[in-house]
C-alpha cells in the first residue's frame, strides 16, 4: 500500500515536471539566450584580462512596478542583453524614496553583477534623513533620460492658471491640498522650489507613488499636484488633467500648450533647467575594467533608436550619458536640489554636513 502511494507521489511530481519542462523553452545551462532575435550576440567581453559577465545580472529597481522608473529600466533589459549576452533579472524594491533599493545593492558585492536602476531621489536622501546612502556611494554607469515636472489640476478645477493657484495658496495658507509621494519624492521637491520662490504653503496628503497622487486629483480629493511628465502624460493628453505650468525653460514637446513656468515666475530661471533623471549604478569599489565594460554596453543599448522612441513616448527626454559626464550631472543635481530644500526649510540636516557645495 505504502509503495503504491509513494510511486503515485513520484509520478505526480514527475508529471508536473515533465509537462512544464516540455512546455517551456530551454532549461539546462545558465546562459539564457531566450527568444530574442539577436543579430549580434556579443558574449563575454574580453577587455584585457577580465571576462565579464559570466552569469546573469541582477537589476534592482527603486520604485514600484508600472511606474516610469520601472518601465524605462525593464525596457532597457533586452538591449543590454544584446550587448552583454546575459539577461538582466529585474526585481522591484520600492520604499523609503529609494532607500530600500540603495541599501540592498550596497549590501551586495561590488562585482558588477548587482546593478541599481534608480531615479533622482537618493541624491537628497541624506539631508532628508531617509537614508545614509546616496549616489556618492555608487558609480553611475549611465543616465538614460530626464524628465520635467508638470503642475496639474482636474480639467474642471477652479484654477485656470498658475497664478490662480498660487494666489489662492497665498490667501489661504495650509488649506489648499496637494498630493505628494512622501519626503524625498518629486512632488515635495518641486513644491519646495515653489515655496522658496513664491512663499506658498500647501497641505500635503501622501500617496503611494505618482499614480496614486494623480488619481487623487482626478477624483477631486485634493486640489493639485506636481508630478513628472511621465506619470501624467496620458491624462494630460486626454484632457482629464490640465497642466497649469511646466517646470522648464521652454515649451515641452507633446504638451506644447502648457505654459512655461518662467513666464509667470521668472525667478525659476535660477534653477531651471532641472529635473528628475533615471539611470543605472553600481556600488563603489567595483573594478574599473568591469565599470568600463558596463558603461560601453549601456551607452550602446541606450542609444538604440527603438529605446529612444519609447523613452519619448513616456514623456522623457533621452540623455544617455556615462562616465564623468554622468557624475557631474548627478552631482550638480544633488547640489542644486539639496540647497533648494534646505532653504525651503524642509530638511532634517544641512547639506554642509555632507560636504555638498552650493552651486548658484
Amino acid at each position, binding site marked *: 500500500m505504502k509503495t503504491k*502511494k*509513494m510511486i*503515485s*507521489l513520484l509520478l*505526480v511530481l514527475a508529471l*508536473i515536471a515533465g509537462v*512544464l519542462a516540455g*512546455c517551456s523553452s530551454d532549461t539546462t545551462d545558465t546562459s539564457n539566450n*531566450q*527568444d*530574442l532575435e539577436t543579430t549580434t550576440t556579443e558574449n563575454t567581453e574580453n577587455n584585457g584580462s577580465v571576462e565579464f559577465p559570466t552569469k546573469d545580472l541582477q537589476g534592482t529597481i527603486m520604485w*514600484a*512596478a*508600472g*511606474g516610469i522608473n*520601472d*518601465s524605462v529600466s*525593464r*525596457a532597457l*533589459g*533586452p538591449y543590454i542583453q544584446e550587448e552583454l549576452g546575459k*539577461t538582466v533579472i*529585474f*526585481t522591484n524594491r520600492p*520604499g*523609503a524614496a529609494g532607500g*530600500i533599493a540603495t*541599501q540592498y545593492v550596497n*549590501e551586495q558585492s561590488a562585482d558588477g553583477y548587482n546593478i541599481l536602476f534608480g531615479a533622482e531621489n537618493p541624491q537628497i536622501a541624506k539631508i532628508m*534623513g*531617509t537614508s545614509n546612502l546616496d549616489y556618492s556611494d555608487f558609480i553611475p554607469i549611465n543616465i538614460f533620460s530626464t524628465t520635467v515636472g508638470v503642475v496639474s489640476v482636474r480639467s474642471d478645477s477652479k484654477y485656470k492658471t498658475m497664478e490662480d493657484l498660487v494666489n489662492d495658496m497665498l490667501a489661504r495658507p495650509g488649506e489648499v*491640498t496637494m498630493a505628494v509621494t*512622501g*519626503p*524625498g519624492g518629486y512632488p515635495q521637491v518641486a513644491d519646495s522650489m515653489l515655496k522658496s520662490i513664491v512663499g506658498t504653503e500647501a*497641505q*500635503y*496628503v*501622501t*500617496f*503611494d507613488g505618482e*499614480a*496614486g497622487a*494623480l*488619481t*487623487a486629483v*482626478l*477624483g*477631486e*480629493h485634493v486640489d493639485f499636484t506636481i508630478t513628472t511628465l511621465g506619470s501624467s*502624460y*496620458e*491624462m494630460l*493628453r*486626454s*484632457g*482629464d488633467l490640465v497642466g497649469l505650468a511646466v517646470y522648464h525653460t521652454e515649451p515641452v514637446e507633446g504638451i506644447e500648450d502648457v505654459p512655461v513656468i518662467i513666464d509667470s515666475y521668472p525667478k525659476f530661471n535660477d534653477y531651471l533647467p532641472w529635473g528628475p533623471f533615471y539611470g543605472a549604478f553600481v556600488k563603489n569599489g567595483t573594478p574599473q575594467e568591469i565599470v568600463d565594460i558596463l558603461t560601453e554596453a549601456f551607452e550602446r543599448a541606450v542609444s538604440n533608436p527603438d529605446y529612444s522612441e*519609447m523613452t519619448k*513616448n*513616456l514623456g522623457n527626454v533621452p540623455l544617455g550619458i556615462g562616465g564623468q559626464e554622468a557624475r557631474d550631472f548627478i552631482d550638480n543635481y544633488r547640489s542644486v536640489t539639496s540647497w533648494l530644500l534646505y532653504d525651503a526649510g524642509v530638511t532634517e540636516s544641512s547639506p554642509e554636513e555632507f560636504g555638498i557645495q552650493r552651486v548658484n
Partner: protein
Amino acid sequence: MEIINGMLSIILNPSLIGILALFVFLGIYVGAMPGLSVSMACSLLISFTFSWEPLPALAAMLGAQIGGVYGGSRAAILLNIPGTTAAVATSLDGYPLAKKGLAGEAIAVATLSSVMGGLIGAVILAIGAPLISNIALKFAPRDYFLLGMMGLLLVGSLGSESNSRGIFTALIGLFIGTIGLDLVTGQQRFAFGNTYLMGGVNYVVVMLGLFGMSEALIQLRDLSVYPVKQKVDNLKPDFKGHVKYFVLTIKSSLIGVFVGALPGTGGDIAALIAYDQAKRTTKNPEVPFGEGAIEGLVAPETANNAAIGGAYIPMLTLGIPGDAVTAIILGALLIHGLRPGPLFMTESPDAFGFIVAGNFIGNIFLLIFGFMGIKLFTKIVEIPKYILMPTIIILSVVGSYAINNSIADIYWMLGFGIIGYLLKLYHFPTAPLILGVILSTIIEQSFRRAVSMAGNSLIGFIIDIVTNPISLILLVAIIFMSFSQSNFWKKTREKKLLNR
C-alpha cells in the same frame, strides 16, 4: 467597431489562442505552488516576452494572471496553504472539505466558480468600464479605510470560540504590518535598526509560515490519523448543481469586479468581503461555514476571478493599475508601445477588445484545464503525511527565499511557523493574523490620508464620512454587519424563534 475588430483578432488567430491557453495552463500550476506568486511569474514574463509582438505578449500575461489567481485555490484546498493571497478565504472552507475526503468536489466547485466570476468580470469590463472607473475615482481615502475595515470584520465571523482571541490575533497582524519604514515619513518603526525589518515583514513569509509550516507541524503531531481517501468519481463541471448558487455568484462577482476596479485593492480583499457577505446572507447552509460550506467556496473564488476583469478597468481607462499584477502588465504595455490611459479606448480600441476577448477565452480554458487532472491533485492529499509534511516545509522555505533571495525571509517564515503552531495549539485562530497583515497597509494609510485631508481632526474625519454618500453607505453597512453578529442580536433572534 474597432473594439469588435480587436476581439475578432484573437478569436480568429489560432496562435494567439494557443499562447493564451498555454499560459493559463502554466499559470494554474504557478499559482498552485505555495511560494510562487503570480506577480513573480508576470515579472519574469515581461522580460521573457519582450521581443514578441505586443499581442502575443499580452496574451501570455493575461493567461498567466487568470490561471494563477485560480491556481492559488488548489493549494488552499488541498494543503491549507493559500497559493495566492486571493485564496486565503478559499482555504477556510476548502481545506475542511479536503479533510473530509471531498477535495475533488471542492476543486470542482472552485473551478466552476472561478470561471463564472471571470466571465462575468469580462462582461462588465466590456460594457461598463468607463462608468465604473468614474465611480471608482470618487472613492476617497476614507472610503478605502471603511472598505478595509469591512474586510477586517470577517474576523468576527471566522468561527473562533472566543471573539477576543480572534480580534487579538488580528491586532497582531495589523501591528506586524506597521513594521518597517513608514511610507509617509520614511522613518523606522519597530525595526530597531535591523536592515531586514526596515523593509517590513512580507505577507508571503507570514502566510507560508502561518499556514504552511505550522499546519505541517500540527499534522505531524498525530501520525495515526491517516489521510482520508478522496472521493474521486468522474468529475465534470456541475452546471445544474451550480444554479442554486446563482444569486451568490452574481453578488460575489459584482463585489469582485468593483473591489478589483478600485486602484490599490484587488482579488484578495474582494474574496474576503465576498466570503463575509456569503456567510451573513446564507440562512441555512447545509454545512456550517468554516467546516466545508460550499457557499464558502463559491463566494471567494467567484470574487477573486471577477476582480481580474475589474482590475483592468482603471488600468485601461485611466492608466492606473487596479492591483499588483495589472501594475506589471501596465509596464509591459508601455514597453510595447501601447499607452494605457484615458485615451486608450479611443486610440487603441483593438487592444482593448483584445483584452476583453482574452479574458473571456482565458476563462473558457480555465474551465477545461481546471477540470483536467483533478484526480491527480487530490491524490496529493493521500500522500503519507510523513513525506508530505516535510516536503511542505521545504516548499515553504523555497517560497520564502524566492521572494527576495534573502535568507532572513526563511528565518522569519520559520518563526511564524512556530508562532502559528503555538496559536493553533492553544485554540487561537490563525486566519485573522494574516488578514491583519494583508489589510494593515490599506487601513492605516487610508486612515492617515483621510485624517490629514480633514485637517488632522477626528471630528473632521467623522464629519467627512457622514456627509459623503459613498462613505455613509459603507459606514451604515459596517455598523449593520458588526451589529448583526454580536451576541445581543443573536440572542434576541433565538428568543424570537423560540417564541414562535
